[in-house]
């Protein structure tokens, strides 16, 4: 009896501690985000040192300024074009390559897969100078196509691994059955494999889109004209060396995050089924 009480007391203490830490981490995660909202809706240009989460004089001035007095929609369009093109090109190449890696045995298969893995081990900034030289040589500096090229190549290795892993879980009997039924390899890929791989395609597309959408360093290096900026570069310039407008920056940050959040919601059902895929027979 005594022992049982003791144990439940200990369990309760552990439980309380756990709750405390969870609360702490939640505050730690949410507070900065709320703080960004405070700044965005506030009227100050600088950073206030107050811990309060409510702006002293709430205003939409920052949003008004960034939306209508800056070329925000051009930057948005730039970002959208770059991110969309990156995910479309990336998905197409990664899906076809991933399928080949999953289904065919060819010389260099293992080496190819490993080399994709190795490219993921180097930090992106390491590649900056060689990439700059290549893009410059191609004459694509200050051109969105240059960014698309660089982003898709850097997203593809991960995407190939991701999709190959998913294709591996699709029973090969489905394809054999289709082969006997009279379908060609190409048709099988588009009519059987791709529809079944929707969850993985959604996850991969989201990954590519986000990578391109959020990327700053390469975009800042390659894009020098204000009108060819993508959103991260444009935002960064609000808090540059000479002028510091944190209000604009925060308002911009909120606007930039909207499409990503929307995309997450749209793809949510695929993301969930992507995570549970393979757990159910048949």
């Amino acid at each position, binding site marked *: 009896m005594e022992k049982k009480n003791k144990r439940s007391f200990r369990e309760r203490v552990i439980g309380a501690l756990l709750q405390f830490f969870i609360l702490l981490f939640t505050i730690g995660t949410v507070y900065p985000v709320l703080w960004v909202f405070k700044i965005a809706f506030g009227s100050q240009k600088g950073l206030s040192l107050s811990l309060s989460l409510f702006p002293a004089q709430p205003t939409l001035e920052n949003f008004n300024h960034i939306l209508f007095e800056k070329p925000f929609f051009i930057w948005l369009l730039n970002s959208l074009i770059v991110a969309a093109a990156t995910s479309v090109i990336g998905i197409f190449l990664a899906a076809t390559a991933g399928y080949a890696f999953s289904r065919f045995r060819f010389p260099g298969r293992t080496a190819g897969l490993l080399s994709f893995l190795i490219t993921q081990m180097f930090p992106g900034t390491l590649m900056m100078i060689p990439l700059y030289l290549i893009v410059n040589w191609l004459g694509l500096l200050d051109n969105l196509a240059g960014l698309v090229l660089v982003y898709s190549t850097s997203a593809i290795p991960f995407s190939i691994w991701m999709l190959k892993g998913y294709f591996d879980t699709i*029973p090969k*009997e*489905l394809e*054999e*059955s*289709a*082969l*006997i*039924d*009279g*379908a060609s390899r190409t*048709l099988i890929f588009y009519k*059987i494999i791709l*529809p*079944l791989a929707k969850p993985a395609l959604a996850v991969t597309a989201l990954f590519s889109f986000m990578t391109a959408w959020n990327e700053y360093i390469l975009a800042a290096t390659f894009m020098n004209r204000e009108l060819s900026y993508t959103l991260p570069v444009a935002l960064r310039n609000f808090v540059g060396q000479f002028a510091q407008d944190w209000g604009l920056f925060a308002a911009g940050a909120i606007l930039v995050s909207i499409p990503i959040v929307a995309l997450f919601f749209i793809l949510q059902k695929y993301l969930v089924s992507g995570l549970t895929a393979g757990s*159910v027979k*048949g």
Partner: protein
Amino acid sequence: MAEVVLENVTKKFGDVTVVKGINLQIRDGEFMVLVGPSGCGKTTLLRLVAGLEELSEGKIIINGRVVNQVPPKDRDLAMVFQNYALYPHMNVYDNMAFALKMRKVPRAEIDSRVQEAARILGIEKLLERKPKQLSGGQRQRVALGRTIVRKPSVFLFDEPLSNLDAKLRGQMRAEISKLHFQLKTTSIYVTHDQVEAMTMGSKIAIVNEGVIQQSGTPMDIYDTPVNKFVAGFIGSPPMNFFAAVVQEENGQTFMQAEGFRLRLQGDLANKIKVEGLKETLFGIRPENLHDAEFFKKGDGFEVFSVQVEVVEPMGAETYVHAMAGKNRFVARVTPKTRARVGQAMQLAIETVKIHVFDKQTMNALRWEVQK
């Protein structure tokens, strides 16, 4: 309608030869069952016929045409896979119509064929459903339906019933047999289940280690297995084997096994004498062992004593597991048996039904009369 002929069919995966020079003829309209333990090469053989694997050597001839280089879709065959291989994102109708769409069959024709197949299989009400909304038996029916809409000249079945529970399996077994009776399409059916082989096949081929051990009608194979493997593989419970020494005494032939001694008569005794066998391996099926108490003794029967280990009443009959010396026997006896675990009982053995195997080659010794 078609005839399938395999000539010296060989398949190697790297250094491993999985199918070793198989020759087999499947006549028009025949239901050929390839049966064998897992890993014996039977599925590979089926996949070779389907064109899903490339031949290493030999020829596959369908309807007089060598199809070695013909892609699967042009071999005019349809296949049912072990896991059904239904397209998960298509409904039942589209699953069944897929092959016809691929072949550019007119829409109206597709519809009538799918409806007809659905009617034959009793799945008309399921046409709008997705595979994941179907039970195992229903999926199996759709998989069958997908093959029959094609009206191919050959059906291939790769262990189609192994994912079903025992009751459903028995039911589907009968349905496939019925379907074959209606359609009379040449079929090759792969299974590891000897019951399926016995009950469904118009012919059986028993495969082991990439070689066909024996082929023929089910009853032929059951009655006259050519070697110990076939004898032990076909039949449930399996045949009992025991080693014994042949002895001659006063012109009579006896076999002395550990724990018991039997007098042999007639053709069997003669054959053993002619062959000059001394030490050899004998086999007897469980149904040829009877409870001596309830069995009229007479010519062709010998009685010996065993120690009962397990008694399994099945209702219509009772299986008795017993030991005689170091030899283990299973006997299918009358349910009236008074056998009790741990006690001795008398078994009557039908000596004319005894199978004799060469100890070295394990091949069966054939003799004339099997009453």
